């Protein structure tokens, strides 16, 4: 399938917003890294070993996209900042068109 552009935004812990663009199939973590978004350490490069790519989504986007896997839910137990109902590991969210307009909030700390 042809790749599509997906636009969404990051919001830092202090409230600064940064609009970004990724391609379908990329992960939110990759987009953060490619755009130099700070606060997503993502030490393990998306292999789900570190829990340092934690983000919160806006509720509507959280509900719209695929639910986290069991492994991701387990990892969310060990993240450094408080876990919330819309917590996700950004390396496990693959962009689809339905992520357009999502708000990705970065927690205070990743470790």
């Amino acid at each position, binding site marked *: 399938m042809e790749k599509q552009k997906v636009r969404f935004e990051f919001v830092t812990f202090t409230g600064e917003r940064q609009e970004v663009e990724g391609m379908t199939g990329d992960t939110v973590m990759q987009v953060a890294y490619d755009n130099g978004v700070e606060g997503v350490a993502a030490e393990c*490069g*998306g292999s789900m070993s570190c829990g340092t790519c934690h983000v919160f989504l806006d509720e509507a986007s959280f509900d719209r996209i695929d639910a986290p896997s069991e*492994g991701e839910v387990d990892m969310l137990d*060990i993240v450094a900042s408080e876990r919330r109902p819309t917590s996700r590991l950004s390396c496990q969210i693959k962009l689809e068109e339905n992520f357009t307009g999502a708000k990705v909030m970065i927690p205070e700390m990743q*470790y």
Partner: protein
Amino acid sequence: MTQAQLQHSDIPAGVPMHDAGERFHPFEHEGMHQLLAEFRQDVPIFYSPLIDYWVVTRRADVISVLRDHERFSAVVATQPVVPWPPELLQYLVDQGFTNESVQVACDPPRHTRIRSHVQGFLNPKKLQSFEAEVRALVQSYVAAINGKDTVDLVDAITYELPALIAFLLLGVKDIDPRRIKSWTELRVKLMHGHPTREEQMAAADDLLDFWRFSCDLVEQRKVNPGDDYPSWLLASRGGDDTRLTENEIKSLTFALLLAAHETTSNASANVLLELLRRPEDWQALVEDPSLIPNTVEEGLRYVSSVVAWRRMAKEDFELAGVSLPKGTKLLLSLASASRDEGTYENGDNFDIRRKNARSHVAFGNGIHFCMGAPIARMQIRMMIEELTSAFPNMTLIPDEEIEIAGVLTFRGPTRLPVRLNG
């Protein structure tokens, strides 16, 4: 190769990059941090003729290479620095040494397939579940030195203990940890050291014994599975070679019998040494143990036990302003990256209260990120907790020579003589 690309012979004598290559002694740890601090200022990359590697000194460049697994292959990560003689290779093959690169020295898609199986066992949650057993082991080792006047902490604690914790994961019982340690040292020397040809040939039979030990372990688990790493891998394989082969499981077990303790022995001894060199820090931890987790991170940052890690370019590339051809081998200095002043204020100072200590690269970065980090951190923390609590007045015995064993990638003191009660 294009004209613009640099050959090391093109680097004129006298320029900082050439000078760095001449002065850098990759197997000598004495003074290495100071030298790297100097290079980091204006030599982000230089060629080391002694090993035929380009050395990368800045944190951002090190991370960018580690994260770019499409362009930089890990196949050289554990390659012998001094190639093994063909006779040795032949002898090993004849004797059934079928160890293959399954993890730290292989690339996707193979790496991805294998790591997904390993992840089922070596994940933070599972590793956390060993907490009580690790605590009990650490306490038993600390109790064993109680009542003594002087001890060598390497000999008494940091050398063996991480091996026993590795045995917990592997379900190994009834083997002398010292046997595994000496096999491991031998393997480290063969991969990352500069052994003579005689040493290489003489190592063959011990290497085979180590390999056979790993194979036996897997064979036993096939008959008698338990809640341990090899049993998990066998179950995850489900008899299907396209998922994971038995030989891959043997190779993974062989790999973990090294990875799970060699680094941790060094890392714990490194941080203990820095603390004991600074009695005020030791005292601070005695008074406020909540400083210990950050101390562990600062130890890993300041004296990472893995001082350097290797990659090879799969295509032509540019790094730190230099264009280099496909096939170039890179030695990423984790030791230098973790002290980079661009990220760490006064990076060459050891500061147990440093705010961003945890952002070090001691465990690597990217898809090969250390899978044992949670349990490594746990044991180092517990060693410091138990030692500061049992021996609040411990001091280093002055004027004793502390030697650092010299291999390309690892660093750790060979002994740590202390007076337990000051």
